[in-house]
């Protein structure tokens, strides 16, 4: 029997290879709690979709176990797993009406006709598409098809729903709207959702936890706030939100604060998160909105000389591209407050940050 604290879905040492030469998924260990909204986020080719397909049963794990509700499901075919799935291109059956599409999972379960009818209507009502019951999928817009695909994945009351970049084909506005809608459906129904996307803002908006994938490995698994505020490595810092990265060498570490000499020769302080011994290389990461711009050097924070290269006025803030420590792509977001310093192109300033806002991470050569 499943205990309250036991994970609902569990990947245990899962590996996957397609060609027998390279691993697409390398040693995946992941527990997903019941009722959780977990997002697998990563660039294309990072192995996230492969993980989803293994969970759905369309790909077999080369090594390791996948458990669902405490049972290993490696040898259970997809149609017996009872997992709802929403596909990227919706995969609504084109020869069936909306109603027939929704009735399909119920009919294959040999549910009585009256009950099928009730359930189909109820789920259509939930996605506000009751008027479209007799339409063919081709007669619906992308957003409407998306809702039907969602309804079809939910109509047979699965405990787990998988979504493979379901909003990828929609325009920006509709995508944002659907994000909230999926989030609300998840909250109301209490189903477990595993969501795959490469869009970090989508992941941040919807998820309880996010697993950031790269190169077949989960780089970091955390809630959205932690992921943004405390990235564990240079890839996550780069992938989630915007950040400025500087390369340097660790000179000394004391009380979690590392002193780093940048490649330009400047010496700065940063929070030691993921660095090696003294003398090792490191990547410093600082968010554009955490940079402090001033006209004079300060003793309290690390400061560097900067020169404004470009200014972009964005209303609520001003985006400055600066030349800092030999990098002319250094971005700083300056809040649009009344006490603005006279920002102008070519002006020389000092930028700095609190020690905690600059994270010393693993060394990664920027591309």
């Amino acid at each position, binding site marked *: 029997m499943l205990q309250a604290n036991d994970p609902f879905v569990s990947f245990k040492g899962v590996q996957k290879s397609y060609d027998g030469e390279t691993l697409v998924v390398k040693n995946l260990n992941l527990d997903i709690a019941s009722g959780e909204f977990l997002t697998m986020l990563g660039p294309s080719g990072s192995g996230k979709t492969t993980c989803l397909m293994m969970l*759905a*049963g*369309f790909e077999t794990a080369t090594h390791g176990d996948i458990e669902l509700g405490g049972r290993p499901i490696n040898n259970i*075919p*997809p*149609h017996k*797993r*009872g*997992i*709802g*799935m929403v*596909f*990227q*291109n919706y*995969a*609504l*059956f*084109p*020869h069936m009406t909306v109603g027939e599409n929704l009735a*399909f*999972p119920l009919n*294959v*379960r040999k549910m009585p006709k009256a009950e099928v009818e009730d359930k189909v209507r109820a789920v259509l009502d939930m996605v506000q598409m009751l008027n479209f019951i007799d339409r063919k999928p081709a007669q619906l817009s992308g957003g409407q098809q998306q809702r039907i695909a969602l309804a*079809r*994945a939910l109509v*047979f009351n699965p405990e787990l729903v*998988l979504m493979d970049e379901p909003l990828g084909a929609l325009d920006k506005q509709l995508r944002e709207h659907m994000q909230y809608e999926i989030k609300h459906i998840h909250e109301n129904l209490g189903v477990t959702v595993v969501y795959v996307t490469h869009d970090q803002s989508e992941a941040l908006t919807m998820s309880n936890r996010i697993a950031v994938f790269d190169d077949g490995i989960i780089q970091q698994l955390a809630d959205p706030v932690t992921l943004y505020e405390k990235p564990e490595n240079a890839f996550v810092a780069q992938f989630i939100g915007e950040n400025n990265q500087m390369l340097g060498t660790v000179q000394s570490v004391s009380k979690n604060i590392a002193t780093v000499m940048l490649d330009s020769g400047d010496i700065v302080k940063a929070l030691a998160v993921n660095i090696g011994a003294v003398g090792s290389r490191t990547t410093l990461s600082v968010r554009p909105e955490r940079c402090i711009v001033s006209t004079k050097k300060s003793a309290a924070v690390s400061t560097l000389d900067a020169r404004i290269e470009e200014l972009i006025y964005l209303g609520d803030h001003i985006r400055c591209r600066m030349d800092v420590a030999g990098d002319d792509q250094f971005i700083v977001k300056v809040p649009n407050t009344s006490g603005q310093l006279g920002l102008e192109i070519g002006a020389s300033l000092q930028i700095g940050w609190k020690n905690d806002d600059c994270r010393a991470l693993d060394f990664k050569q920027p591309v």
Partner: protein
Amino acid sequence: MVDSQTVQLEPITAADGTPLKKKLAQALFRSRVRAVSLVLPLFAFVMASFVIPIIALMWQGVYNDTFSSYTPNLTEKLKVWDGMSQPDEAMYAALVVDLETARADRTIGRIATRVNQEYPGTRSLFTSTARKAKKLKAPFKDSVIKTNKKWDNIEVWRAMKITSQDLTPAFYATALDGRYTANQGFVSQDENRQIYVQLFWRTMMISGTVMGLCLLLGYPVAYLLATLPLRTSNLLMIMVLLPFWTSLLVRTTAWIALLQSQGVINDLLVYVGITADDARFSLIYNMTGTIVAMTHILLPFMILPLYSVMKTIPPSYMRAARSLGATPTKAFIKVYMPQTIPGIGAGGLLVFILAIGYYITPALVGGQDGQLISNMIAYHMQKSLNWSLAAALGGILLAGVLLLYWAYDRVIGIDNMKLG
């Protein structure tokens, strides 16, 4: 509102004052001329080599003026004859005059052949009487009957009355195992002379069987082609297309080598012990041979449309069906198969229509009961030289094909068809 309507009444003009429509037509003229000139050679070729011959031949099916043009006097008399009363002296006189001229002009053979088509066994009656026509004296009725008693038979005269009509349904009646008679209209042919209707049915049946076999054999291959990785499917595709690169005759004769009683397959069956040496299967020169060879030859025409349809069905449909709880079989039947119907329809129609017109293969491997209607058409074109009957048979076949298209359009919709 009122303003805009008054403006609408004025024709819109281009900047130089000419009406916009005229200007547009001028601007498009060059591209239209180019489009037409690109299509024109093919259009002319198709008209000259396909459309016009078909129309001309179809016309022969209902129009034949051989008799009336060579026997002008008799035709005139036959026109006014009621077909019931005994032929009178004037008609016999006209007959003698026309036979005499026909013999001199050497057209008697054509006349005799034409009447013989209508009333078999009268050919020699005409040729022999024509030889004696010069010596015949009045009263012609008696002297003509004296040369051959058949001239007293009113059926001969009725046959001549029918053949004297240029525009006649007689060939279509024959093609449908009937006869068009002067006194009774349409009657059905004697039982032992009925061949065409049965042949039409056999053609339909064999074509249907070939279509069914092609679908049965081609569907899994097309599915493999559409789902296998590109490298493997390319190799398979070459194997599917290989027959296209081999001559039709070579393929057909290859089947003769395989299927004949001393052939590879029978030898193998005897060797394995399935059949005795003196009881070999007759696999060729019968319906079996026709069906086997035609199925092989027409298979690509089924596979290619099926493949092109299956290629467009994303694998996510099957996955979706499985994730929704359908077993692989159920997902295939309920989700995959319905989406291949346009391909099944196109392939089926293509194979069926090619099959009902098939000629060389049944002629080579069909033997007696493997012949199709097209072999009979060829016989009438080449051997019996009854082009009108050939045209009538062809017309019926064409009507059948058009009917099939119509039915297909009603059931599946012609715009649903995908050929590649």
